[in-house]
């Protein structure tokens, strides 16, 4: 019915003898709120790395808006509208929070090649970055060096950078991991406030969060799709309960 933004066909990736992704067929539609769950080492992060071009697959295809991007460079994919956050913070630690977001917004607007104009004179970029920080309740930290922030706040910078890219497809790798529970609602609120048309794929171990957020859930086990369905279907699936929910739910 709705447009497929991102699609994979028989996507596989091996690290030597280890098959980290096996024959994954996956679709993310425009406006989707999709969750990817699975036990540790199931290959969730690897899947995102394949989608974003950090790794090239051993087999299979990745399509964005119908276009084959399987071997495309990372930066080119970002230009086509894929953005992600990292499970473990990957930030410009020595720079200020504002500069971190500035860099992302500047790249999106193609300002990164601008040499003869001071960065501060691109008020449009500064303003947009500040607005994003404000939305994520980060504006009080805007001037602080990222490395000075507590880990949970750094997670928010991670999200701010991804949002600064205004993606059509947003891939969130455990965005709330390491965030104190008192602050995790900031992340959920921000995700809820995203434009409706973009497709969001979220990885998380917090089942409350997953079931609240997602319209569809894919369960990955041992690199392969184990089950896929609505939260209701997945919640009722005894096999899923056995391999995954049974162990992880209580915590």
């Amino acid at each position, binding site marked *: 019915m709705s447009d497929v933004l991102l699609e994979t066909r028989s996507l596989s990736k091996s690290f030597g003898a280890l098959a980290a992704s096996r024959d994954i067929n996956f679709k993310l539609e425009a406006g989707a709120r999709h969750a990817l769950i699975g036990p540790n080492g199931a290959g969730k992060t690897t899947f995102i790395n394949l989608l974003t071009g950090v790794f090239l697959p051993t087999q299979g295809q990745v399509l964005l808006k119908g276009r084959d991007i399987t071997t495309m460079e990372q930066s*080119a994919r970002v230009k086509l509208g894929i953005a992600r956050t990292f499970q473990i913070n990957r930030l410009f630690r020595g720079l200020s929070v504002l500069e971190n977001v500035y860099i992302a917004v500047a790249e999106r607007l193609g300002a990164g090649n601008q040499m003869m104009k001071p960065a501060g004179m691109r008020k449009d970029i500064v303003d947009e970055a500040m607005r994003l920080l404000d939305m994520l309740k980060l504006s009080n930290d805007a001037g602080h060096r990222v490395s000075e922030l507590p880990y949970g706040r750094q997670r928010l910078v991670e999200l701010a950078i991804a949002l600064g890219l205004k993606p059509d497809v947003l891939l969130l790798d455990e965005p709330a991991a390491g965030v104190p529970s008192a602050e995790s609602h900031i992340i959920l609120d921000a995700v809820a406030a995203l434009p409706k048309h973009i497709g969001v794929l979220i990885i998380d171990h917090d089942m409350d969060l997953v079931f609240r957020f997602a319209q569809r859930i894919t369960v990955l086990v041992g690199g392969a799709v184990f089950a896929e369905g609505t939260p209701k279907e997945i919640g009722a699936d005894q096999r899923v309960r056995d391999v995954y929910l049974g162990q992880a739910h209580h915590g």
Partner: protein
Amino acid sequence: MTMPAQQVTPGLSGHPAALALINRHRVRAWEPLPWIIAIAFYFAFPNHLGFGTDLLVTILFALSLDLALGYAGIVTLGHAAFFGAGAYTVGMLAHHGIWTEPISGLFLAAGVAALIGFASGLILLRTTGLTLLMLTLCTMALLEEAANMGEKYTGGFDGLPNLPIPPLFGLFEFNPLYPRVQYVYVLCVLFVCFVFVRTLVYSPFGQSLTGIRENVLRMRAVGAPVNWRLVTCYTISAAIAGIAGGLWAQANAYVNLSTLGLDRAATVLIILVLGGYGRLYGAFIGAVVYMALSHFLAKVYPTAWQLGLGLLLMLIALFARNGVLGLWDQLTSRFIGKRGPT
């Protein structure tokens, strides 16, 4: 229509962090100081202008390295390759009577160095860390060997002495014994190059270089063409190093293998670490401290002065990772309060 937007963001663009970024490139009150000192030096020490000229050339060379190493995080041990390329460009063109005019000579020096920087950068900058370090070193060694072997053109081991450098604008003679013209000329070129580098590092391009330095993976993930940026930066840095080398050849009226060697590459690295890299003025402070110290130590301990310099470097590495300027920041921040990142 615009009312709501204005209401949402009244405090935001006036936020201290936003203002700091917006005003970052403004000239600070103390910034004319190095230039005033440089001009005062001309009048105060007319007999030491040779030393002064050498110092200014070294600052320019260190500044070029700062752009690559300090801002973009390109770890290189072979930056003298570009210094030498510039020096030999000026030297060979003059020696063989092809081109002698100084200012256009600098453009040629910059062009040749940039070309070598671009070509080698395309290949080398795919690597990082120790591999990159070794490859930059090898590139420089190759050039040095080429200069050594191509005796017919480069003068080989002896270099090219007595370069015929015509007067600047046909008016101001370069006198090797009393290098007043050289000093003023080099100072002017340094100033122009400095303004250029300063503009560059405060631009969005410069900001993206610091992003690459801080986290390459994240930089790719925000869609930056990382390799292309690095090659661009390396090429510009090489061009400026080439200008420094060209100036050296013009001011001394000769060129030899010392312009290309590991000695020069290591020294400029030491200077930058000493002064503090990634902070523009580190090149100035580092060059002054290094040249003054080696001058002084060589007089007091003619046989073991390098030992003293080595000890000082160890102290810097242990206690002041960000060089003299970093130390200064730490001290002032104790009294004035926290300083934001640059």
